[in-house]
């Protein structure tokens, strides 16, 4: 499917339909304090060009609803994305066919400067378990048509679901070839588990992309203010493969650290900046994140945002989306990989936080779904790097917060019959792990599986297994796979079994790499544990 397939006649038809829709327009609350230079720009106004440069997206599917997203940015690297400094009207349509002959929902939304002209329409009244197409129109320009899918009806028996797990897409580290292949998988949803952007400044040559056109000067500084985070999202979304992945599949997103700053923890910055300053930075970063993801309203107001949430896919699967960044204490012992130390075991240090932890375990206990997924940022299972003969652990992962790690793993052990499946990102490597009742005892009970998806691009071309990767394999018997090439995991669920396909591309320093399955595993429902497929 591509927008090129929409015939002009359909566009004319759509325009007629737009003109005849009445009663759908909601009153638009315009800001009243716009400066003198603000000029009116309704849907009939002229823009500096096609405003749909950043594509379209959908996400957080419910049985009767899905969020559809776009952002108006005719000149995405210019201030305000090249938009006039006033709200614009965007019309939208949702249809049951990709030629929009059967439009079932439509309406208007305001694209406001306060939200970088993004629109997040929570389209309600849809049928469960059904594919839809959607598109937007503004100032005479028609967006590409996106494809999305609602969740199955509550309680419905579902034969099959496919989720793609992706994370870590540093733009200067290479091309998003993995996203091109992910888009073609036609998954029911993408679970994106963090590091959608990296905050770092980007050199003129675009890093490993070695772009023909220099990356504009305004990208040289690190993203730390709202305008600068917005620029970063615009650059990332300039990649056609990322836009394709959004356009073809609804996404369920959560963040990790780089959406704000490398390895921040709660309100503690990497550089221990004054809390007052970092609070402002976090608020700007959270706002920019919301603006660019297909998330429901309301937008974040200030430095806090409730991102953890639960989405249900009939009786087959429930997805618990976690946020282990916003509520955590500072990393133990100065962060990085460290031997065991008292601080990491301090029970007073939150990670997900007591409230989220209770929400997670209570929800899983009530779940009626066969498979219960945790969309998780950093590795939850124990991982021993064993540098120089001593057990060493990642202070930024669950291993750095052992009290909560223990508490959640104990909780999952009690919910073993719910088939816990933790899907994770962060480490730029494919790992497949049995979650053990006692990681020190390989014969102890397996309580679930953790599927760590490799990065889309972070880390560049990658290798099959590095020296560190071999070290992990040697010291963690519950670890069944390490592969450090770029890609994603495809998780196929049926009432009887889970099949996980680790997919990777051989290079990303130029476009066009083919994708191959590195390894596949199965997990039998009711009997947690990985089996080579």
């Amino acid at each position: 499917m591509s927008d090129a397939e929409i015939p002009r006649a359909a566009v004319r038809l759509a325009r007629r339909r737009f003109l005849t829709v009445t009663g759908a327009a909601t009153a638009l609350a315009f800001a009243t304090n716009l400066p003198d230079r603000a000029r009116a720009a309704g849907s009939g106004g002229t823009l500096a060009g096609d405003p749909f440069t950043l594509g379209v997206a959908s996400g957080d599917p419910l049985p009767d609803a899905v969020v559809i997203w776009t952002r108006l940015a005719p000149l995405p690297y210019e201030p305000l994305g090249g938009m006039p400094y006033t709200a614009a009207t965007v019309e939208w349509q949702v249809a049951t066919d990709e030629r929009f002959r059967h439009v079932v929902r439509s309406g208007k939304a305001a694209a406001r400067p306060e939200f970088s002209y993004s629109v997040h329409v929570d389209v309600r009244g849809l049928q469960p378990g059904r594919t839809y197409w959607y598109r937007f129109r503004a100032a005479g320009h028609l967006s590409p048509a996106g494809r999305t899918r609602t969740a199955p009806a509550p309680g419905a028996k579902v034969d099959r679901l496919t989720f793609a797990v992706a994370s870590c897409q540093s733009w200067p580290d290479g091309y998003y070839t993995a996203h091109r292949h992910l888009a073609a998988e036609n998954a029911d949803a993408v679970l994106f588990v963090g590091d959608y952007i990296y905050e770092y400044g980007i050199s003129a040559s675009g890093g490993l992309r070695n772009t023909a056109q220099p990356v504009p000067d305004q990208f040289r500084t690190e993203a730390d203010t709202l305008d600068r985070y917005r620029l970063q999202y615009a650059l990332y979304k300039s990649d056609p493969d990322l836009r394709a992945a959004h356009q073809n599949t609804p996404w369920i997103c959560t963040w990790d650290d780089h959406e704000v700053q490398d390895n921040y923890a709660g309100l503690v910055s990497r550089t221990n900046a004054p809390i007052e300053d970092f609070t402002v930075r976090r608020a700007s970063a959270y706002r920019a994140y919301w603006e660019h993801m297909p998330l429901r309203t309301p937008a974040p107001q200030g430095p806090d945002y409730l991102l953890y949430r639960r989405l249900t896919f009939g009786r087959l699967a429930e997805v618990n989306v976690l946020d282990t960044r916003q509520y955590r204490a500072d990393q133990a012992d100065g962060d990085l990989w460290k031997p065991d130390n008292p601080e990491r075991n301090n029970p007073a240090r939150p990670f997900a936080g007591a409230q989220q932890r209770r929400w997670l375990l209570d929800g899983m206990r009530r779940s009626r779904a066969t498979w219960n997924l945790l969309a998780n940022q950093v590795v939850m299972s124990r991982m021993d790097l064993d540098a120089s003969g001593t057990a060493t652990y990642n202070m930024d992962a669950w291993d750095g917060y052992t009290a909560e790690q223990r508490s959640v793993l104990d909780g999952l052990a009690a919910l073993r019959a719910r088939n816990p499946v933790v899907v994770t990102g962060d480490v730029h490597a494919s790992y497949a792990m049995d979650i053990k009742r006692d990681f020190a005892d390989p014969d102890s009970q397996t309580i679930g599986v953790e599927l760590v998806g490799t990065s889309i691009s972070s880390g560049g071309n990658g290798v099959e297994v590095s020296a560190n990767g071999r070290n992990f394999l040697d010291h963690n018997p519950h670890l069944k796979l390490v592969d450090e090439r770029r890609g994603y995991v495809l998780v196929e669920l049926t009432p009887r079994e889970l099949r996980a396909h680790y997919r990777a591309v051989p290079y990303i320093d130029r476009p066009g790499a083919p994708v191959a399955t590195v390894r596949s595993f199965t997990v039998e429902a009711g009997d947690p544990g990985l089996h080579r497929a």
Partner: protein
Amino acid sequence: MPTMLSGPTVPIRPLTLVRRTAAALRRRALGVAAVVLLAAFGAVAPAQAATSAPPDLTLATDVDHVDVTPVPCAQQGFQLRFGNAGSSAVYADAFVDAPAPLTVSRPLVSSYLPAGYTLKVQIQVSAPSDTPPGAYTITLHAGSRTLLLPVRVGRVPVDTTGNLARYQQVSASSENLPTYPACGAFDGDRDSTHWAATTGWNDATKGAFPDWLQVTFDHPRQVGRVDLYTLDSAKYPAAAYGLRDWNVELQAGGAWQTLAQVRGNTAGKVESTFPATTATALRVVTLASNEGPTYSRIVELEAYAA
């Protein structure tokens, strides 16, 4: 087409997703026509739109004027102090308009601003080398506030050492920003003890070679010698952290030519001499580091006629 109603936004919190869905199903079961809740985007207004009073924004700078040297890599600018003197938090925009041909690193600064908070942002001001010297004005505005910042553009400095690489356009395959920009290798500072403080280029693609560092001349130059200073200090000796292998290339007639190859280097400074060649650009293509598969590190790169 079902009846469409517009309504107030109902904030949908994660904890209530399931309950709301159930409620929607009950509505359908009762035969109520499907209700479309159009997301009322304006209902969740930013703080400044929630009241009728315009936000009380403040603008200031740390200097009363900016002196600008019109060459690439010049470090010059000002700190913008963007404040909220009001009693409630806002999301606000400050525009930084520079008259052509001047440019600023951030023509727009947007931020969340709690009540009483002042954001401090460094803004670089640049001018191309053909900018007429004289007085210019940068205009800052936010809300109803406007602030004028005078700029004095000086003359292009003259290099008296014969180093053809000073004050020219530079680029690199990648830059480890913000600490190790390409400009750091053309700042006239060869001292490796200043590494990580003020001087030197370090690429950003760990383990990936080749990398390259380039200077593009404003007009064709005769180049017969290139001096490369790689990282070499007591803490970071060249034999352990410096460049080992690289090629020196000149662009002549649009094509790159390799004029010198250095292999197995362990010294902090290497002079490469070759027959003088008229070139539009010089680049060093790095092939290996003494540290192994990590980074390329150049403290200074200089070009001379002979």
